[in-house]
């Protein structure tokens, strides 16, 4: 039974992190945009659930009051409706994902605008600062998504019996992650993917060929943020509540960077490898934290060990294996594949 939960946990986190890492890989791996504010887009996905969908449902069910208390009522009413009528639950899920993607894309496009005037290092600092401040605002402001109180979220799978919920949710997340993967492969294995790599290597050359670097950046970060917002929304539905503190920089910016560097930059298969390796270790650490603390006689909590370990892992990758587990390959679009065949 414990093993079953363990595997489902790994599957769920694998799916969530895969979505975020694929989005970051488009931006940083392919495009070379140092998005140190990835966590913001994930938070936007959570706001779409906790702040927007909750309010829409409040109007639909005629519930009034502050978002924190009202979200509890919304949850219980919505759960009953969904339990009786599964279509409503699926409808809410799809509508939320669309809203999350739209808001993600808009914030992403606005978020990258400072890059017009800034060099790489200044840009990274600015993006990190914006993301960090938005994180603080949504934590302290109780009107948006309940701040430090958090808000409840309807269970979109309320029609599934309790004991099967985790399994169905894992299936749902993996399905969506797979769809995202297929879409991302199509986006990157194309002339556009090649353009992104060209931009990463030399912006002047791209400009000289008549492409506007700023437009490419805005498009790329909009797409990336839309994808990352999906993960935020799914995570909120899975945990059935939203609290800003779960969207920290470490969990949603640093760890994704660690996973894509571990797997290999600009390489979608590498992302799968990196995410799988990382998530397995992380979940095992969380599940067996008491056993680990006891066995090693640690005089402190295991979460600190997790930080130290993953920090060191990142440094080891950067120094000893900067190319990651799987090396970057050249992009094979259809015409190139034909050319390659003809040569053979």
């Amino acid at each position: 039974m414990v093993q079953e939960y363990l595997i489902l946990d790994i599957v769920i986190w694998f799916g969530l992190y895969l979505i975020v890492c694929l989005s970051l890989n488009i931006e940083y791996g392919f495009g070379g945009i140092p998005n140190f504010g990835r966590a913001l887009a994930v938070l936007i996905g959570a706001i779409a659930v906790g702040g927007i969908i909750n309010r829409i449902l409040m109007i639909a069910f005629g519930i009034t009051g502050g978002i924190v208390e009202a979200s509890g009522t919304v949850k219980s009413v919505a759960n009953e409706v969904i339990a009786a009528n599964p279509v409503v639950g699926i409808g809410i899920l799809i509508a939320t994902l669309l809203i999350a993607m739209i808001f993600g894309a808009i914030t992403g496009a606005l978020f990258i605008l400072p890059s017009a005037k800034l060099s790489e290092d200044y840009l990274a600092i600015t993006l990190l600062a914006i993301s960090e401040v938005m994180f603080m605002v949504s934590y302290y402001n109780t009107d948006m998504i309940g701040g430090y109180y958090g808000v409840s979220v309807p269970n979109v799978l309320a029609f599934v019996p309790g004991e099967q919920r985790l399994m169905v949710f894992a299936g749902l997340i993996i399905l969506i992650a797979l769809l995202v993967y297929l879409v991302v492969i199509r986006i990157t294995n194309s002339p556009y993917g090649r353009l992104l790599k060209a931009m990463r290597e030399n912006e002047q050359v791209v400009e000289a060929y008549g492409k506007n670097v700023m437009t490419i950046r805005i498009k790329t970060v909009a797409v990336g943020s839309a994808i990352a917002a999906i993960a935020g929304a799914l995570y909120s539905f899975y945990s059935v509540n939203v609290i800003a503190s779960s969207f920290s920089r470490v969990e949603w910016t640093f760890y994704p960077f660690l996973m894509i560097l571990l797997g290999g930059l600009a390489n979608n298969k590498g992302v799968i490898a990196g995410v799988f390796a990382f998530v397995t270790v992380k979940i095992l650490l969380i599940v067996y934290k008491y056993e680990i603390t006891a066995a090693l006689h640690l005089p402190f909590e295991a979460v600190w060990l997790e930080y130290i370990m993953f920090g060191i892992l990142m440094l080891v990758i950067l120094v000893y294996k900067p190319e990651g587990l799987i090396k970057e390959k050249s992009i094979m679009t259809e015409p190139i594949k034909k050319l390659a065949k003809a040569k053979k």
Partner: protein
Amino acid sequence: MSVLEGAIIYSNLLVLLSIGLTITYITTAVPNFAQGSFAVFGSYISLTLLRIYGIHPYHSIPVAFVFGGLLGISVYLFILKPLIKREAEIVILMIATLALDLILLGVLGAYSDYLASVTKKGAKKFIFTPYDFNIANLSAIFVVSILVITFILACLFLLLYKTKFGVALRASMENPALAEIMGVNVEYTRIFSWFLSGSLAAIAGCLLPFRQEIVPLTGSIIIVSIFAASIVGGLASIYGALLGGYIIGISESFITYQLSTVLGSGVLVYSKVVSLIVLIITLILAPQGLTGVRWRKIKWFKSILSST
């Protein structure tokens, strides 16, 4: 402690932190994301000395200075130098300092648990205000922070402008390749800058608990203000750090307080938003920071406007 007093104390500490950030940026071209955790490292040194040996935090400043400096040097030698040798890109170096920040967070968190179990007193959250006293109607931390900042700036000035080492240091900041040809060992200046960065941050960390509560995570919260201060002043100039530290420090505490008297106390939690807004305005108007602006050109422009 009056609001203005608090704002000046905070600004003094912010200046210490942003000078450290700027000086390592000038010599190694890495914006150090772990600068905030360097400060928390200093806070835990003074907490340890206080809890175990009963040493007053003001007396632990020299110890924090030395240990902070050693931390700075080891960060450079063991983490950044190998990467720079491999000609890693600047973003990779920045990711390395993010990783370092996470490691420091883990180490400090683990240490706080350990210290708590040794002293039987919580160490995950602490503040030094009960240990402060008054000097002629002013809080001691106000006087101490001003003395510390004056002393450090004076030493820095003497070092940079009155010694041979200082000349070499400035030369290698200005143009490392040329300085190397002239026989300056650029490596020494880098090591020195990391020592200084770590030690100044540790001093700031020693004094910060007199003004705000410290938790292991404090470093990743104040890093936004440190970067804002350094960038507003101009990342390429030590004077910029001084200027930016006061601008951000004052606006974050004093202006936020003034806003709260108009808009209600709810505004107080958004002090970091104020520094972010100042940061973004600076980046749009003067990406090189205030010290990067060519003021003479603007004055000349103004005089034309006034004469016509």
